[in-house]
């Protein structure tokens, strides 16, 4: 399993088809770059790559709106 900032940014830019690669602090959902359909894919990517289980109540902007936030959230689970 490899899960780090680079993998996450690569997944968001390639698999979710975003024109400009996001930076660590780019707002993904509140800005509208990604939508809820992308969220579903993102959650399963995070679960598989990081080997964690994301609880429904954890799917918030606070935990998922930026690459940095996602990394911090995953760390808090490990």
């Amino acid at each position: 399993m490899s899960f780090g900032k680079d993998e996450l940014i690569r997944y968001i830019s390639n698999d979710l088809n975003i024109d400009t690669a996001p930076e660590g602090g780019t707002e993904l959902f509140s800005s509208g770059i990604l939508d809820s359909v992308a969220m579903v894919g993102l959650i399963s990517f995070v679960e598989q790559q990081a080997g964690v289980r994301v609880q429904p109540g954890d799917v918030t902007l606070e935990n998922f709106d930026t690459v940095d936030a996602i990394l911090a959230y995953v760390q808090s689970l490990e």
Partner: protein
Amino acid sequence: MSKDFDRSMWSLMADNLPHRAGKIAAVDRGRSVTYAELAAEAGCIADWLGARGIRPGDRVIVHLRKGIDEVAAMFGAWKMGAVVVNVNIRWTPAQLAYVARDSRARAVILPRNVLDALTGENALPEGTAYLVQGKAEGLVQGADPWAAPAADRASAPDECDPRGLAMIIYTSGSTGAPKGVMLSHRNIRVGAISVAQYLKLDESDRLLSVLPYSFDAGLNQLTTMMLTGGTVVHQPLTMPAEIIRMAAAEAVTGIAGVPPLWNQIVRLLAGRPTALPALRRITNTGGKIPPNILELLPQVFPGADIYLMYGLTEAFRSTYLPPERFAAKMGSIGQQIPNARVFAIKHGEGIAGPGEQGELVHAGPLVSMGYWEKPEITTQKIRPCPELAHILGDEPVVWSGDLVRVDDDGDMWFVSRMDEMIKTLGFRLSPTEVEDAISQSGLVSDVVAFGVEDADLGQAVHAVVSYLPQGDETALAAHCARAMPHYMRPQRHHTWQGMMPRTASGKLDRPAIISAVKASLDN
């Protein structure tokens, strides 16, 4: 609130200006506008459309993320008498280009990244006017930045015919290209009047808008709030935790959803109760909520009225179950809404009586103007009903294609899409019945049942499911053997990895799900 049916869409909003100019009309995350400010923003857009040569009756596409700008763009187009075509922001550039060409749109209001994608085979005709949200530098010719319409000149609104075309809602059917359903100003206004009446909405209400404005039920949150002088609170994110957080923070008085969304919200709240003291009502439309989720609704939303509703785009909104009957009739879609006439028809026989099934048909002022430039399919879908000739004469009705059962009180229960009924072992089986029974196991989050041609059975029952963490095929098969009669049990359970695809309105995309499973069977 004016009960007058024959007023324009612009009036629906502008009628608030004399006495509510300073009241908050709409709220985005971090921004809100009063009725006066909304009218001014819409006025700017109307002036811009006029300056770009758009005439009354021309089609204007609005393709924006849910929010105040989107609402201003729609009312701006209505102010100068144009026809609004709201294309869901989740649709692809190719779908947008299809709708733009099919409707022969003369102006498109859209975000910068979508405009940049309208090239090659998705390019629109030269001369199309664009108003663009986002980065202003380097725009192509014909495209104006959002800031271009500088000030509202407060020009007089177009005096349009309230019975004329106001909006085209494109629906992606199970087969073929999207079709545009034509709604008049009157259709939309009667829809707002009828729904505001039975949901008991007034100017103190603050409705949460999650469902898209390109979807008839979503549009109704906006139109009922404009009609009553209330406030619409926008939530463009469909993340359940964010929806509930916003509902609490903004003290919303109503939430409207579709079954997959209620599914997620109820699971969230069951594990983490959240008090929503301002909430007066929740409403469902767009399909049947699974029974195990329905039962939890009163528990997770204590004190809120629960409305189960049914509508189809071709007749806007059709039926609802009054909240007093929810406990006794969980799952029923009730009876006709005010101003609508809805019947269940047994083909060639008459009106379905208690205990009988029939096709739901809808007559009255909510019946749409039919499909945009498709007269043949319009006359198939909207035509007189011989079984009702003694009541309606030759007045056209919408034939829904939905089979409903009528109970002893005249309340209706959705059975199935007529073309999805499964014929197995001589039984006519409703996929909804199979899905309800499987949901009751508590092992799955989503389930779709369907028939597959079978030499011995006629059709075999198949089900595709997304398992919850506690579910697997062995446990589900054991549940089915225990809880379902033999003919109803799926011959095969297919596992769907991850979440099943949704339509842009948030409903399960049944045709896509079924065809994906059938394709895997053929291989």
